[in-house]
Protein backbone atom coordinates (compact mmCIF):
# COMPACT_ATOMS: atom_id res chain seq x y z
CA UNK A 1 0.00 0.00 0.00
CA UNK A 2 2.84 2.35 0.87
CA UNK A 3 4.31 2.40 -2.60
CA UNK A 4 0.93 2.53 -4.30
CA UNK A 5 -0.20 5.69 -2.54
CA UNK A 6 2.93 7.83 -2.76
CA UNK A 7 1.67 10.39 -5.28
CA UNK A 8 -1.66 10.81 -3.48
CA UNK A 9 0.01 11.19 -0.10
CA UNK A 10 2.51 13.66 -1.52
CA UNK A 11 -0.31 15.78 -2.88
CA UNK A 12 -2.02 15.73 0.51
CA UNK A 13 1.22 16.65 2.26
CA UNK A 14 1.37 19.77 0.10
CA UNK A 15 -1.87 20.92 1.77
CA UNK A 16 0.15 22.09 4.78
CA UNK A 17 0.39 25.33 2.81
CA UNK A 18 -2.60 27.66 2.41
CA UNK A 19 -1.38 28.68 -1.03
CA UNK A 20 -1.50 25.05 -2.18
CA UNK A 21 -4.92 24.51 -0.65
CA UNK A 22 -6.26 27.47 -2.60
CA UNK A 23 -4.63 26.22 -5.79
CA UNK A 24 -6.28 22.84 -5.28
CA UNK A 25 -9.70 24.38 -4.63
CA UNK A 26 -9.44 26.52 -7.74
CA UNK A 27 -9.06 23.43 -9.95
CA UNK A 28 -8.91 20.08 -8.13
CA UNK A 29 -8.44 17.98 -11.28
CA UNK A 30 -5.50 20.06 -12.50
CA UNK A 31 -3.90 19.87 -9.06
CA UNK A 32 -4.23 16.06 -9.09
CA UNK A 33 -2.52 15.98 -12.48
CA UNK A 34 0.29 18.17 -11.21
CA UNK A 35 1.08 15.43 -8.66
CA UNK A 36 0.64 12.69 -11.27
CA UNK A 37 -2.17 10.88 -9.46
CA UNK A 38 -3.36 7.77 -11.26
CA UNK A 39 -6.98 7.48 -12.40
CA UNK A 40 -8.11 5.57 -9.33
CA UNK A 41 -6.57 8.16 -7.00
CA UNK A 42 -7.89 11.11 -8.97
CA UNK A 43 -11.42 9.73 -9.09
CA UNK A 44 -11.36 9.07 -5.34
CA UNK A 45 -10.18 12.61 -4.62
CA UNK A 46 -12.62 14.34 -6.94
CA UNK A 47 -15.55 12.35 -5.55
CA UNK A 48 -14.20 12.83 -2.01
CA UNK A 49 -14.67 9.14 -1.19
CA UNK A 50 -12.40 8.31 1.74
CA UNK A 51 -12.64 4.52 1.41
CA UNK A 52 -11.62 4.81 -2.24
CA UNK A 53 -8.65 7.01 -1.30
CA UNK A 54 -7.55 4.39 1.22
CA UNK A 55 -7.94 1.64 -1.38
CA UNK A 56 -5.76 3.73 -3.71
CA UNK A 57 -2.95 3.79 -1.15
CA UNK A 58 -3.82 6.92 0.81
CA UNK A 59 -2.57 7.15 4.39
CA UNK A 60 -5.18 8.28 6.93
CA UNK A 61 -3.02 11.09 8.30
CA UNK A 62 -2.42 12.61 4.89
CA UNK A 63 -5.99 12.15 3.68
CA UNK A 64 -7.10 14.07 6.77
CA UNK A 65 -5.42 17.16 5.33
CA UNK A 66 -7.66 16.89 2.26
CA UNK A 67 -10.66 16.52 4.58
CA UNK A 68 -9.54 19.72 6.29
CA UNK A 69 -9.85 21.65 3.04
CA UNK A 70 -13.53 20.76 2.89
CA UNK A 71 -13.98 21.42 6.63
CA UNK A 72 -14.84 17.79 7.24
CA UNK A 73 -14.13 16.78 10.83
CA UNK A 74 -13.28 13.27 11.96
CA UNK A 75 -16.93 12.50 12.69
CA UNK A 76 -17.93 13.45 9.15
CA UNK A 77 -15.19 11.24 7.81
CA UNK A 78 -16.05 8.40 10.18
CA UNK A 79 -19.73 8.57 9.28
CA UNK A 80 -18.98 8.54 5.56
CA UNK A 81 -16.73 5.49 5.85
CA UNK A 82 -19.11 3.49 8.01
CA UNK A 83 -22.25 4.42 6.08
CA UNK A 84 -24.16 6.04 8.93
CA UNK A 85 -25.23 9.59 9.72
CA UNK A 86 -22.90 11.82 11.70
CA UNK A 87 -25.35 11.68 14.63
CA UNK A 88 -25.34 7.89 14.57
CA UNK A 89 -21.55 7.84 14.38
CA UNK A 90 -21.26 10.18 17.37
CA UNK A 91 -23.80 8.17 19.34
CA UNK A 92 -21.72 5.05 18.74
CA UNK A 93 -18.66 6.80 20.20
CA UNK A 94 -20.56 7.85 23.30
CA UNK A 95 -21.85 4.28 23.61
CA UNK A 96 -18.26 2.95 23.61
CA UNK A 97 -17.67 4.86 26.86
CA UNK A 98 -20.60 3.25 28.66
CA UNK A 99 -19.56 -0.39 29.00
Amino acid at each position, binding site marked *: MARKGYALNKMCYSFNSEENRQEFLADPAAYCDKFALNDEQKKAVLSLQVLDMLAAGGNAYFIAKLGG*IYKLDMQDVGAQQTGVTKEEFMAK*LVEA*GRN
Partner: protein
Amino acid sequence: MAKIVGGICTTHVPYIGRAIAKNLQQDPYWKPFFDGFPPIHAWLDQVKPDVAVVVYNDHGLNFFLDKMPTFSIGAAPEYHHADEGWGIPTTGSFMGDQDLSWHMIDSLIEDEFDLTTCQEMLVDHAFTIPIDLLLPNRQAGSIRTVPVCQNTVQFPLPSAKRCLAFGRAIRKAIESWDSDARVVVLGTGGLSHQLDGERAGFINKKFDLEFMDKLVSEPDWVSQYSIPDIVELTGTQGVELLNWVTCRGVLGDKVKIVHSNYHIPISNTAAGTLAMESI
Protein backbone atom coordinates in the same frame (compact mmCIF):
# COMPACT_ATOMS: atom_id res chain seq x y z
CA MET B 1 23.37 14.76 37.53
CA ALA B 2 19.94 15.59 36.12
CA LYS B 3 16.82 14.34 37.93
CA ILE B 4 13.78 12.76 36.29
CA VAL B 5 10.84 14.11 38.27
CA GLY B 6 8.19 11.95 36.60
CA GLY B 7 6.23 11.35 33.45
CA ILE B 8 2.85 12.25 32.04
CA CYS B 9 1.02 10.43 29.27
CA THR B 10 -1.92 12.07 27.59
CA THR B 11 -3.90 12.11 24.37
CA HIS B 12 -3.21 14.78 21.72
CA VAL B 13 -6.40 14.98 19.61
CA PRO B 14 -6.03 18.10 17.37
CA TYR B 15 -9.55 19.20 18.27
CA ILE B 16 -8.36 19.92 21.84
CA GLY B 17 -6.37 22.85 20.45
CA ARG B 18 -9.60 24.54 19.41
CA ALA B 19 -11.22 23.89 22.79
CA ILE B 20 -8.27 25.55 24.53
CA ALA B 21 -8.31 28.49 22.11
CA LYS B 22 -12.05 28.97 22.75
CA ASN B 23 -11.86 28.39 26.56
CA LEU B 24 -14.31 25.49 26.51
CA GLN B 25 -12.84 23.73 29.56
CA GLN B 26 -16.15 23.95 31.47
CA ASP B 27 -18.35 23.07 28.50
CA PRO B 28 -20.22 19.79 29.21
CA TYR B 29 -18.56 18.01 26.26
CA TRP B 30 -15.06 18.98 27.41
CA LYS B 31 -15.33 19.15 31.22
CA PRO B 32 -14.81 15.40 31.92
CA PHE B 33 -11.57 15.58 29.94
CA PHE B 34 -10.18 18.88 31.23
CA ASP B 35 -11.04 17.92 34.82
CA GLY B 36 -8.21 15.41 34.62
CA PHE B 37 -5.59 18.15 34.67
CA PRO B 38 -5.79 20.36 37.80
CA PRO B 39 -4.28 17.65 40.08
CA ILE B 40 -1.42 17.29 37.60
CA HIS B 41 -0.97 21.07 37.48
CA ALA B 42 -0.64 21.05 41.27
CA TRP B 43 1.96 18.27 41.09
CA LEU B 44 3.94 20.13 38.40
CA ASP B 45 3.91 23.25 40.61
CA GLN B 46 5.58 21.09 43.23
CA VAL B 47 8.17 19.23 41.17
CA LYS B 48 9.03 22.28 39.02
CA PRO B 49 10.52 20.73 35.86
CA ASP B 50 13.06 22.77 33.87
CA VAL B 51 13.00 20.57 30.78
CA ALA B 52 10.36 18.40 29.09
CA VAL B 53 11.41 15.45 26.95
CA VAL B 54 8.36 14.95 24.73
CA VAL B 55 7.80 11.55 23.10
CA TYR B 56 5.22 11.96 20.34
CA ASN B 57 4.55 11.15 16.69
CA ASP B 58 4.51 13.59 13.81
CA HIS B 59 1.37 13.53 11.61
CA GLY B 60 2.85 14.79 8.34
CA LEU B 61 4.15 18.22 9.34
CA ASN B 62 7.89 17.77 9.78
CA PHE B 63 8.20 14.37 8.13
CA PHE B 64 6.92 13.07 4.83
CA LEU B 65 7.28 9.59 3.38
CA ASP B 66 10.43 10.59 1.50
CA LYS B 67 12.37 10.53 4.79
CA MET B 68 10.42 8.76 7.49
CA PRO B 69 12.52 7.96 10.56
CA THR B 70 11.67 5.33 13.14
CA PHE B 71 13.12 7.40 15.99
CA SER B 72 14.16 11.04 15.61
CA ILE B 73 15.36 13.62 18.11
CA GLY B 74 15.37 17.38 17.90
CA ALA B 75 18.64 19.25 18.51
CA ALA B 76 17.54 22.79 17.67
CA PRO B 77 17.69 25.99 19.70
CA GLU B 78 13.91 26.34 19.35
CA TYR B 79 10.94 24.58 17.82
CA HIS B 80 8.01 26.07 15.96
CA HIS B 81 4.53 24.85 15.30
CA ALA B 82 3.15 25.45 11.79
CA ASP B 83 0.09 25.07 9.60
CA GLU B 84 -0.87 21.38 9.59
CA GLY B 85 -3.51 21.78 6.92
CA TRP B 86 -6.57 20.88 8.97
CA GLY B 87 -7.34 24.26 10.39
CA ILE B 88 -6.22 23.97 14.02
CA PRO B 89 -4.70 27.12 15.57
CA THR B 90 -0.90 27.29 15.60
CA THR B 91 0.71 27.93 18.96
CA GLY B 92 3.78 29.85 20.11
CA SER B 93 7.30 28.46 19.85
CA PHE B 94 9.20 26.28 22.30
CA MET B 95 12.73 26.67 23.65
CA GLY B 96 15.06 23.75 22.99
CA ASP B 97 17.79 22.38 25.24
CA GLN B 98 20.67 21.61 22.91
CA ASP B 99 22.91 20.37 25.73
CA LEU B 100 20.45 17.68 26.66
CA SER B 101 19.62 16.93 23.01
CA TRP B 102 23.24 16.22 22.11
CA HIS B 103 23.91 14.38 25.33
CA MET B 104 20.92 12.12 24.60
CA ILE B 105 21.99 11.64 20.97
CA ASP B 106 25.53 10.64 21.98
CA SER B 107 24.30 8.24 24.63
CA LEU B 108 21.55 6.66 22.52
CA ILE B 109 23.70 6.08 19.43
CA GLU B 110 26.33 4.55 21.73
CA ASP B 111 23.53 2.28 22.98
CA GLU B 112 22.74 1.23 19.39
CA PHE B 113 19.60 3.23 18.72
CA ASP B 114 19.81 4.36 15.09
CA LEU B 115 18.51 7.90 15.50
CA THR B 116 17.72 10.57 13.00
CA THR B 117 19.00 13.89 14.38
CA CYS B 118 17.07 17.07 13.58
CA GLN B 119 18.93 20.35 13.95
CA GLU B 120 15.82 22.10 12.63
CA MET B 121 12.36 20.67 13.29
CA LEU B 122 8.73 21.67 13.15
CA VAL B 123 6.62 20.25 15.97
CA ASP B 124 2.98 19.38 15.42
CA HIS B 125 -0.13 19.23 17.63
CA ALA B 126 1.08 15.98 19.21
CA PHE B 127 3.90 18.00 20.78
CA THR B 128 2.15 21.35 21.36
CA ILE B 129 -1.25 20.29 22.74
CA PRO B 130 0.01 18.18 25.65
CA ILE B 131 2.32 21.01 26.71
CA ASP B 132 -0.55 23.48 26.49
CA LEU B 133 -2.73 21.12 28.54
CA LEU B 134 -0.08 20.61 31.22
CA LEU B 135 1.31 24.15 31.41
CA PRO B 136 -1.68 26.36 30.59
CA ASN B 137 0.10 29.45 31.89
CA ARG B 138 3.39 28.73 30.17
CA GLN B 139 5.47 31.80 29.34
CA ALA B 140 7.91 31.71 26.43
CA GLY B 141 11.02 30.08 27.88
CA SER B 142 9.46 28.85 31.11
CA ILE B 143 10.31 25.29 30.09
CA ARG B 144 12.95 23.93 27.73
CA THR B 145 12.10 20.97 25.49
CA VAL B 146 13.59 18.01 23.63
CA PRO B 147 11.28 16.47 20.99
CA VAL B 148 11.56 12.69 20.57
CA CYS B 149 9.49 11.61 17.59
CA GLN B 150 8.45 8.01 16.90
CA ASN B 151 7.03 6.67 13.65
CA THR B 152 3.46 5.51 14.15
CA VAL B 153 2.40 6.64 10.67
CA GLN B 154 4.11 4.47 8.04
CA PHE B 155 4.31 0.72 8.62
CA PRO B 156 6.42 -1.09 9.72
CA LEU B 157 6.55 0.50 13.18
CA PRO B 158 9.00 -0.19 16.00
CA SER B 159 7.73 -2.89 18.37
CA ALA B 160 6.47 -2.13 21.88
CA LYS B 161 9.52 -4.02 23.14
CA ARG B 162 11.85 -1.76 21.15
CA CYS B 163 10.05 1.37 22.38
CA LEU B 164 10.34 0.24 25.99
CA ALA B 165 14.07 -0.37 25.50
CA PHE B 166 14.35 3.05 23.83
CA GLY B 167 12.70 4.66 26.85
CA ARG B 168 15.04 2.86 29.23
CA ALA B 169 18.03 4.04 27.22
CA ILE B 170 16.66 7.60 27.35
CA ARG B 171 16.49 7.23 31.15
CA LYS B 172 20.14 6.22 31.22
CA ALA B 173 21.01 9.20 29.01
CA ILE B 174 19.15 11.76 31.13
CA GLU B 175 20.52 10.35 34.38
CA SER B 176 24.07 10.63 33.09
CA TRP B 177 23.59 14.25 32.01
CA ASP B 178 25.86 16.51 34.00
CA SER B 179 23.27 19.14 34.93
CA ASP B 180 21.13 20.04 37.92
CA ALA B 181 18.06 20.28 35.69
CA ARG B 182 14.76 18.66 36.65
CA VAL B 183 13.34 16.70 33.72
CA VAL B 184 9.75 15.66 33.08
CA VAL B 185 8.90 13.17 30.33
CA LEU B 186 5.74 13.27 28.25
CA GLY B 187 4.25 10.51 26.12
CA THR B 188 1.46 11.69 23.86
CA GLY B 189 -1.31 10.16 21.75
CA GLY B 190 -3.87 7.37 21.97
CA LEU B 191 -5.58 5.76 23.53
CA SER B 192 -7.79 3.52 21.37
CA HIS B 193 -9.07 5.12 18.18
CA GLN B 194 -9.32 4.37 14.50
CA LEU B 195 -9.84 7.08 11.90
CA ASP B 196 -9.76 5.07 8.69
CA GLY B 197 -11.76 2.36 7.01
CA GLU B 198 -14.85 0.35 7.79
CA ARG B 199 -13.76 0.12 11.43
CA ALA B 200 -13.61 3.93 11.87
CA GLY B 201 -14.83 4.88 15.34
CA PHE B 202 -13.47 1.72 16.94
CA ILE B 203 -12.73 2.16 20.66
CA ASN B 204 -11.67 -0.50 23.19
CA LYS B 205 -12.27 0.70 26.74
CA LYS B 206 -11.48 -2.67 28.31
CA PHE B 207 -8.05 -2.90 26.72
CA ASP B 208 -7.23 0.78 27.38
CA LEU B 209 -7.95 0.44 31.10
CA GLU B 210 -5.90 -2.74 31.36
CA PHE B 211 -3.08 -1.06 29.41
CA MET B 212 -3.05 1.94 31.78
CA ASP B 213 -3.06 -0.36 34.78
CA LYS B 214 -0.24 -2.61 33.50
CA LEU B 215 1.79 0.36 32.28
CA VAL B 216 2.13 1.37 35.92
CA SER B 217 2.62 -2.02 37.53
CA GLU B 218 4.22 -4.18 34.86
CA PRO B 219 5.56 -2.18 31.89
CA ASP B 220 6.89 -5.24 30.04
CA TRP B 221 3.36 -6.65 29.83
CA VAL B 222 2.67 -4.75 26.60
CA SER B 223 5.73 -6.33 24.90
CA GLN B 224 3.74 -9.54 24.46
CA TYR B 225 1.74 -7.75 21.76
CA SER B 226 2.99 -7.35 18.19
CA ILE B 227 2.17 -4.21 16.21
CA PRO B 228 -0.64 -6.02 14.33
CA ASP B 229 -2.01 -7.13 17.73
CA ILE B 230 -1.98 -3.54 19.00
CA VAL B 231 -3.68 -2.26 15.84
CA GLU B 232 -6.32 -4.97 16.25
CA LEU B 233 -6.82 -4.15 19.94
CA THR B 234 -6.69 -0.34 19.84
CA GLY B 235 -7.23 0.76 16.22
CA THR B 236 -4.89 1.98 13.50
CA GLN B 237 -4.24 5.22 15.40
CA GLY B 238 -4.50 3.68 18.87
CA VAL B 239 -1.03 2.35 18.11
CA GLU B 240 0.15 5.80 19.23
CA LEU B 241 0.22 4.22 22.69
CA LEU B 242 3.81 3.35 21.71
CA ASN B 243 4.63 6.90 22.85
CA TRP B 244 3.25 6.05 26.29
CA VAL B 245 5.37 2.89 26.33
CA THR B 246 8.58 4.81 25.62
CA CYS B 247 7.67 7.43 28.25
CA ARG B 248 7.10 4.64 30.77
CA GLY B 249 10.51 3.19 29.96
CA VAL B 250 12.12 6.48 30.98
CA LEU B 251 10.57 6.25 34.46
CA GLY B 252 12.47 3.18 35.63
CA ASP B 253 11.32 0.01 37.35
CA LYS B 254 8.77 1.20 39.89
CA VAL B 255 6.38 4.11 39.66
CA LYS B 256 3.33 5.33 41.53
CA ILE B 257 0.35 7.12 40.03
CA VAL B 258 0.13 10.86 40.62
CA HIS B 259 -3.23 11.12 38.88
CA SER B 260 -5.13 9.38 36.13
CA ASN B 261 -8.19 10.07 34.04
CA TYR B 262 -10.02 8.31 31.20
CA HIS B 263 -12.89 9.69 29.16
CA ILE B 264 -14.73 8.64 25.98
CA PRO B 265 -15.02 10.30 23.53
CA ILE B 266 -12.93 13.28 22.58
CA SER B 267 -13.48 13.52 18.85
CA ASN B 268 -13.16 9.81 17.82
CA THR B 269 -10.74 9.00 20.59
CA ALA B 270 -10.64 7.45 24.04
CA ALA B 271 -8.79 10.16 25.96
CA GLY B 272 -6.47 8.83 28.65
CA THR B 273 -4.27 10.83 30.99
CA LEU B 274 -1.76 9.26 33.37
CA ALA B 275 0.82 11.08 35.50
CA MET B 276 3.45 8.95 37.26
CA GLU B 277 6.35 9.44 39.63
CA SER B 278 9.32 7.09 39.97
CA ILE B 279 9.69 5.45 43.38
